[in-house]
């Protein structure tokens, strides 16, 4: 166990899940809500030459996906450091601790 305590491990996992669910919520709203379910209503609004719903479906959702991954990477790196379960910065060839070696199902 790399965490200081069971409590830490639980808290880390809960924060991780919370972040993931928030980001997946945005993911769902941007693509399925704006791009598909409410596309008609949004099409009443114009963004330059684009109807807004059409723009979300063919452009906007993709930009939002990119932003989501960027936020996730930054936030998770912070979280890893907070609970000091981040990876060491030295040579990646030398694992910090050996992988549990187990063979199942043979």
């Amino acid at each position, binding site marked *: *166990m*790399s*965490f200081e305590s069971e409590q830490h*491990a639980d808290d*880390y*996992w809960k924060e*991780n899940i919370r972040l*993931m669910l928030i*980001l*997946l919520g945005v*993911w769902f709203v941007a*693509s*399925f809500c704006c*791009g*598909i*379910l409410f*596309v008609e209503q949004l*099409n009443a609004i114009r*963004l*330059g*030459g*684009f*109807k807004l719903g*059409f*723009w979300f*479906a*063919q*452009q906007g*959702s*993709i*930009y939002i*996906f*990119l932003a*989501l*991954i*960027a936020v*996730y*990477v930054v936030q*998770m*790196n912070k979280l*890893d450091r907070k*609970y*000091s*379960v*981040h*990876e060491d910065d030295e040579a*990646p*060839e030398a*694992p*910090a*601790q*050996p*992988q*549990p*070696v*187990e*063979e*199942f*199902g*043979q």
Partner: protein
Amino acid sequence: MDIQTLTFLIVGATFALYIGIALWARAGSTNDFYVAGGGVHPVANGMATAADWMSAASFISMAGLISFMGYDGAVYLMGWTGGYVLLALCLAPYLRKFGKFTVPAFIGDRYYSQTARTVAVICAIFVCFTYVAGQMRGVGVVFSRFLEVDITWGVIIGMGIVFFYAVLGGMKGITYTQVAQYCVLICAYLVPAIFISIMMTGHVIPQIGFGGELNDGSGTYLLDKLDGLSAELGFAEYTSGTKSTIDVFFITAALMVGTAGLPHVIVRFFTVPKVRDARKSAGWALLFIALLYTTAPAIATFARVNMIDTINGPDAQGTAYEKAPSWIGNWESTGLISWEDKNGDGKMFYSGDERNEMDIDRDIMVLANPEIADLPAWVIALVAAGGVAAALSTSAGLLLVISTSISHDLLKRNLMPNISEKQELGYARIASAVAICIAGYLGINPPGFVAQVVAFAFGLAASSFFPAIIMGIFSKRMNKEGAIAGMLSGITFTAAYIIYFKFINPAANTPDNWWFGISPEGIGTLGMLLNFAVAVGVARMTSDAPKHVQDMVADIRFPKGAGEATAH
């Protein structure tokens, strides 16, 4: 220089580059061969993933599909990018920490079952072969149009090149070749798009240009003009589409989840040194993919307006056939465009109603686009090189998954556990050589159902792998009984629905007969939900996963201590 000489030169130069990289990045160990030694930089890995992902279908067919589907084309745009969010947030970091070579290895170990592993191997091989057949065909099409060689020779040349760097270099050779191939294909995609965007709207960036005003001084927005043209000619409004909302919803979801469950995409995240890099790498991959995917709808719009204007002429009364631009003749000879003078006025006319006289294949839009817009010959040659790069990079990635599944998951872990690393590497090379020959055969003699089976590949990945992997990470207690029952019911349901509507009774393939109005393309989403439901139900009734498996799951949930991806 004429187009053909230029095409030979540019395509030849890119081939020389790929072979050079393959020689430099030869694989010495199974580790090199399967996961490139686990030492690929996240940016390079992102590029390689993008090249691996964007196939001949993305490069050649997608913009054409959108061009003919309008708004409905968004299912591909969102479906094939949104899956990367799922990959980055729910799969990549945990699978990297788990640290094995393949998806079947994860399924087999997490569910402590040889049966689960075997089911996963069979799914992986099937999904990959489905895909690779289409890729080889793509290579053949590009060769036969631009190099004017026979399609068979086109496929054989393509096979030879892939054989060389996939068999020799394994994942290491493939990864670095794919980086080069990404650069070639993205240039080939962006250059004509930028040219046309400037010509039509005066904007350098196509993503902005297709929402801009036309360059002709009329002040009309491009998309408004296209909606107007569509209405006049009896097509559905471009920005609205024709599919039902529920169908668009389910197809998008199936493509997203399918993307996140495709073995040749997932295996990419085993090649980076750290868990942190796996997260980052998914972001880079999506960035590189988004460059092409946000350009595609712009190309689709430009191409559609250009094509209608060229065929119907400035007065929208039709253009005389004798005065037709040369691209129409060029593509007529390949059989992908045809004209039938129904009203006998000697003029071509294109519309969505009974006045229509043209039959235009959707696949030519990207390849013909530079010709339609009258771009210089070197741009046309570049597009040919890009199409070949897209097809080759994806085939190589798929072939690797096939050979790994056979040599590692089937032979080493199942049938002959005592072979040495050197023998395993030998088997991996033999397996990829055999796989290339089969793929080439399928490319030269394509079974009629290639287009149909693409829906199959995504549906299967969505309804089998994705739920099993997600539950393997996010539920410690999920056991083998639940996972196997879930995978089997998900696959069986999805496959049965697709086979019924695509093969047994294609005549019934209409919205009235579909369940809840969901087409076979979108049914994978329902299969995935079924998989989850069955797995949870069965797991409730059977005992929890054993302690050592639960400990393993706890261990993959944080990054610290991730070693290299290993075989055992």
